[in-house]
């Protein structure tokens, strides 16, 4: 079972689908952020297992790049959540629509 590429890909697709379900079904902005992290992890798993299949080290480098990008994303996303929470006192993701409006200083 651990010998075939397909079982790793199946696990990665299950995790990716769970992440996608979290993004489309939840309104809590923290859960949406965590679902994005889960999807990034699933993609990492696909990269690493395909890299093991072809015995190449390059996908592992790509996975490291993805981890670094996730770290950068975490910093900006979480500071944005902190700012919005201080202003509106809610974690509803709908409040982020004010970011797209011209006059957001209510």
């Amino acid at each position, binding site marked *: 079972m651990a010998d075939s590429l397909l079982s790793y890909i199946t696990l990665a697709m299950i995790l990716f689908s769970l992440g996608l*379900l979290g993004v489309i079904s939840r309104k809590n902005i923290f859960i949406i952020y965590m679902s994005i992290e889960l999807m990034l992890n699933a993609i990492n798993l696909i990269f690493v297992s395909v890299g093991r299949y072809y015995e190449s080290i*390059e996908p592992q480098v790509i996975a490291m790049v993805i*981890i670094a990008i996730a770290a950068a994303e975490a910093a900006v996303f979480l500071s944005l959540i902190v700012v919005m929470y201080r202003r509106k006192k809610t974690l509803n993701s709908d409040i982020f629509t004010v970011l797209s409006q011209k006059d957001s200083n209510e």
Partner: protein
Amino acid sequence: MIDIVFVVLAFFAVSGGVGMILFAQPIYSALSLIMTILALAGIFALLSAPFLFMLQIILYAGAIITLLLFIIMFLNIQSDNLPEEPHKKSTIVVGAILLVPFNILILKAFYTLPNKPMHILGDNFGSISLFGTELFRGWLVPFELISILLLTALVGAVVLARKDK
């Protein structure tokens, strides 16, 4: 033996993911996500990527999710700050059914690849020295771009999070 390890790790990964999208409190979701990430670190070790195994534990579980937990605790969220999610379960069920064809498509694409044994490779595959050589030979420009991206994110986070005048 490896099969048992894989099944246990996959079980923990999937149950952590399911818990993450079902819990109402963000703190429980974050703890479930840590479980998923640690299980994925073990799976990276099974795929002969020891450096990524360490990176996943140190960077993901140790830095990113800890930052997330810190922010969740720092905000002191009461239960009336949480958004109402009346259609959560029905959306999850409908979405899961809609995602089945997509998953079948991806798995069919991978099914056509010839079967190859995936045992753990010895001879330094995935070790830090091989990884670093590949990183600084073929991936130097992306590496420098990541440094710039991290610097930009750092500046952006500081600018966003400072107190309003």
